[in-house]
């Protein structure tokens, strides 16, 4: 229980409560955007800085490879399940969402590890960055394969093509994350020292403000739940748990430490509501965002933040992965 009593999680709950009592509390969008860029820069430069100290060994490369593979492959499995109830476009979109990752969930897990005084490896940030996009490709592939008879490639569509790749690879969030990490690597100890007073110290405080807003946003989405239905609510939780456990298993096979194992679980088990929706609005406009964004944001995100993180961590400890 004590695990829940950290300020960021409590501010997230405060946001949920504020939305449920229909308070007029609002954190202006431009400001939330800044905070989210800050969190990405913070986690990116810190990861890069740690990489500059250690570098990439075999385990690191294997972990990154496994993460990318999972992002690409998992949607092919979840798509089958989703097709039981949803049409092609929506199934592909939800599958892509769950193949990709939620940076904010990752960031919250980092704060959790920090509270437990458990370390993690810099390359996990690289793993996160490289897991964002493969699932987008899978999602679009799945939709294409299913509707290959009808769809005729047109000049219009080809233009869409190139912008799909742009969205998948050069999405703002991906770019800031990858760029910050490279800058962290390049500038090393000296660079980190100069920006650490902004990039590290206020980190948890900023996370509080950000999660306050996420609580508001997630709970205000709850009224879209009836559009979404019981099947998808269950899917949002079960897919998180199953994929999270696959993450734990992968971590165990790779032999990483407990911190990295938690982060891998969270990457596998979280669902994207930034990079993937941005790409899908262009690549799969037929898919209904009020389905895939709602599950990711109003179901899976709160579940992971509040229950998933401590649960995966308990399992990781139980199966004896060392810190």
């Amino acid at each position: 229980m004590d695990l829940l009593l950290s300020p960021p999680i409590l501010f997230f709950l405060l946001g949920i409560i504020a939305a449920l009592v229909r308070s007029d509390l609002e954190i202006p969008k431009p400001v939330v955007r800044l905070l989210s860029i800050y969190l990405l820069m913070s986690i990116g430069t810190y990861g890069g800085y740690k990489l500059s100290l250690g570098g990439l060994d075999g385990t690191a490369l294997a972990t990154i490879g496994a993460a990318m593979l999972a992002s690409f492959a998992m949607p092919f499995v979840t798509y089958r399940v989703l097709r039981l109830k949803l049409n092609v476009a929506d199934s592909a979109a939800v599958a892509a969402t769950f193949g990709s990752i939620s940076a904010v969930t990752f960031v919250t897990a980092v704060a959790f590890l920090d509270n437990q005084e458990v370390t993690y490896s810099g390359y996990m940030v690289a793993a996160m960055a490289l897991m964002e996009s493969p699932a987008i490709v899978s999602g679009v592939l799945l939709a294409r394969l299913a509707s290959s008879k009808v769809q005729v490639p047109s000049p219009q569509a080809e233009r869409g093509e190139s912008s799909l790749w742009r969205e998948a690879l050069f999405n703002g969030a991906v770019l800031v994350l990858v760029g910050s990490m490279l800058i962290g690597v390049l500038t090393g100890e000296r660079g980190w020292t100069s920006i650490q007073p902004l990039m590290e110290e206020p980190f948890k405080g900023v996370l509080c403000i950000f999660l306050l807003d996420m609580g508001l946003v997630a709970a205000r989405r709850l009224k879209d739940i009836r559009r979404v239905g019981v099947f998808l609510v269950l899917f949002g939780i079960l897919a998180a748990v199953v994929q999270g456990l696959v993450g734990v298993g992968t971590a165990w096979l790779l032999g990483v430490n407990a911190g990295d194992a938690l982060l891998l679980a969270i990457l596998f088990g979280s669902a994207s509501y930034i990079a993937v929706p941005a790409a899908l609005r262009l690549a799969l406009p037929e898919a209904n965002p009020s389905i895939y964004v709602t599950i990711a944001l109003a179901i899976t995100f709160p579940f992971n933040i509040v229950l998933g993180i401590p649960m995966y961590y308990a399992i990781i400890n139980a199966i004896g992965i060392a810190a």
Partner: protein
Amino acid sequence: MRAVKRIEIIIEKPHIPKVRSMLDSLGITSMTIFESVAGFGDRGDRIGSGVSDAQVMHALLTTCQPDQIDDLSAQLEPLLRRLGGLCLISDATVIRD
């Protein structure tokens, strides 16, 4: 003062480039865009969220010659059907250099 058609297109932000290149092909390049408006329609609420811009709506205001309306309509309709959104056309007079 000159009679023109006032055109107002409300569409998701990520689709603005598509609309602009369509307008471009009709020779319409001057316009004003009201960014990040809140949309409520058949496809749900679009109120933006700070974390993602993907669903936010923009309102694009432009003008054209009355005789361009048919072309515009023919090109815009399939786009709006596929992507959602709306276009309002009305009569107006323009004052300008």
